[in-house]
């Protein structure tokens, strides 16, 4: 081998290792965060922590039951609003790939996807909070639903595009009405893809804070009334993290751990679903 060839091969090898090194550096911040949240949050986790509401400022003890229940409820209502609409819109987009309406609708979905979450918060404040005269959990849910929609729509559309048209044609040829073909054949066939989209969307909004600042607002008490202000995990973390109280920092770390587990579990489950029931044709 001549010198030049050696040099070229060496460059190639060095570059490969360099790329590998850079690529795996991303694990450092992730593990640093997980480690830190675990270290500080794990000692907080207890039955008391998840079943009690916060104590008055500066007093020791208390938990995050209000935020935990609030987050679950706000996200659940958001999902109830966004999932049916999102799936049906996804069906429309995949069924009418070349229509003008689908083109504009798709663009609108892109616009919604690009909208910063804080802007959605502002808009919902003017749409719902101000006219109704009250901050409310439902306004937060609607804000989060708007953030969910693009993800659900896109994943539905992409999944259904993969299904062969013979499936639909066979259904129609058997005399099934169109809606039955969609609801009983097409959607069930693509359910794993749709479901993973839904779960990713839920994971995404579960950690969202910005749209809740001006909508769900926060509440020191445990409440299930969606027409009233409600606390949520991300809001609690934001408020407590920037405060000077060590007690609150601890609560915030505990809440972070729960939120992190929730979000990561959703992501991992999604992975398992897609691996097990992959849409294959």
């Amino acid at each position, binding site marked *: 081998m001549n010198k030049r060839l050696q040099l070229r091969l060496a460059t190639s090898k060095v570059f490969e290792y360099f790329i590998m090194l850079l690529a795996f550096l991303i694990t450092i911040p992730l593990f640093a965060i997980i480690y830190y949240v675990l270290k500080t949050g794990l000692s907080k986790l207890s039955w008391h922590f998840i079943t009690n509401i916060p104590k*008055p400022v*500066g007093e020791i003890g208390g938990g995050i039951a209000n935020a935990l229940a609030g987050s679950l409820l706000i996200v659940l209502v958001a999902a109830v609003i966004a999932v049916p609409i999102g799936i049906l819109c996804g069906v429309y987009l995949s069924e009418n790939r070349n229509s003008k309406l689908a083109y504009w609708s798709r663009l609108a979905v892109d616009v919604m996807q690009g909208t910063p979450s804080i802007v959605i918060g502002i808009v919902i404040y003017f749409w719902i909070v101000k006219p109704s005269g009250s901050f409310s959990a439902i306004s937060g849910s609607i804000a989060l639903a708007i953030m969910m929609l693009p993800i659900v729509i896109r994943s539905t559309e992409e999944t259904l595009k993969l299904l062969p048209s013979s499936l639909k044609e066979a259904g129609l040829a058997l005399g099934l009405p169109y*809606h039955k073909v969609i609801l009983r054949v097409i959607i069930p066939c693509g359910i794993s893809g749709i479901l993973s989209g839904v779960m990713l969307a839920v994971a995404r909004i579960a950690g969202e804070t910005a749209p809740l600042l001006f909508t769900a607002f926060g509440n020191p008490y445990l409440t299930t009334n*969606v027409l*009233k*202000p409600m606390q949520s995990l991300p809001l609690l973390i934001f408020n407590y993290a920037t405060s000077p109280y060590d007690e609150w920092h601890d609560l915030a770390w505990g809440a972070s751990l729960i939120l992190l587990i929730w979000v990561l579990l959703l992501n991992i489950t999604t992975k398992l679903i897609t691996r097990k029931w992959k849409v294959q044709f």
Partner: protein
Amino acid sequence: MNLIGLKIKNFLLAGLSFMAISLVACNGGDNNTPGQMANNASSDDNTLLGAGSTFVYPLFSKLFSEYNKVTGLRVNYQSIGSGGGILQLTNKTVDFGDSDAPLNEEQTQKIGAPVLHIPMCSGAVVLSYNLSSVTDTLKLTPDIIANIFLGKIKSWNDPQIAAANKGVTLPNTKIVVAHRSDGSGTTNIFTTYLSKVNAEWNTKPGAGSSINWPVGLGGKGNEGVAGLIKQTPGAIGYIELAYAAQNKMAFAKIQNKAGNFITPSVTTTSAAGNIQLPADAKVSLTNTDAADGYPISGFTWALIYKEQGYNNRSQDRSNKLVKLLWWNIHEGQKYCEGLNYAPLSPSAVAVAESILKSATYKGKPAM
């Protein structure tokens, strides 16, 4: 065929009905007594929503937690800053606001209806700092404070600070100024004070709830500023006494009008607040004449509409609100000192009572 039709409808309606069910079913969730449930089918449950001052938040969170034990009423108070409290009251999204600065002319005009200012307590705004090497309590004069917040004094071992603190070894640390990022009555008290004592401050940044700071970092709420000070070596900022005391943060003695260096405390705040309140209770306590009074203190006012019968509010709701505030200025006062707030003097309570009594529901007295 009928079945299919039903199924479609079911599917389409599933989302909506589930939503409706959750809306309706959850509505009663907060009601503890069955009687209430019958009375309040709408959104009127046993809660009140307040927002505003972070200055008074440590006290309010204690008061409302106690009040909840006594009466079962849940008061949700969000400390979003005085400016936020006033705005949300203007938008009628809260039952009451709380501010450490009375409504200014523009705010009064915008809100459009008479608003009652009910004094709750008074508190001291302290200058808290983070200097681990200094164990003595620093003494600050009005000019030093103004110059620090104007960005003219940049380092802790500045001759001006050294002159006021003879015998204290000051580190050569850069000063990090911490201020509020949100609209704040605490800022109003502090900047009103600076405008009174420093001519340059009076012309340039001026006094207000959210001003254009010449220097420094912004934190959200008293909590955020206290957090910044606690985390940043060399930081100085203004926060309510309760935050500094609860977090064991150092705070300075301030030279008052009489020339004495005063440590902020309940006693010195009370000394500054020991004046006859005007009938509307809107008064500034800064730069007090009292020889033993702490110069940077102020009242915090709960804000409610004088006419409570707006936006279809039920009389029950207005009753609960007035009763809550009445409790605050009477039974609630005993919690003030423990949290380093100065309770209202008997004469101030009398003024507060008469203001609260002037509240009406559909023209009739609300009390």
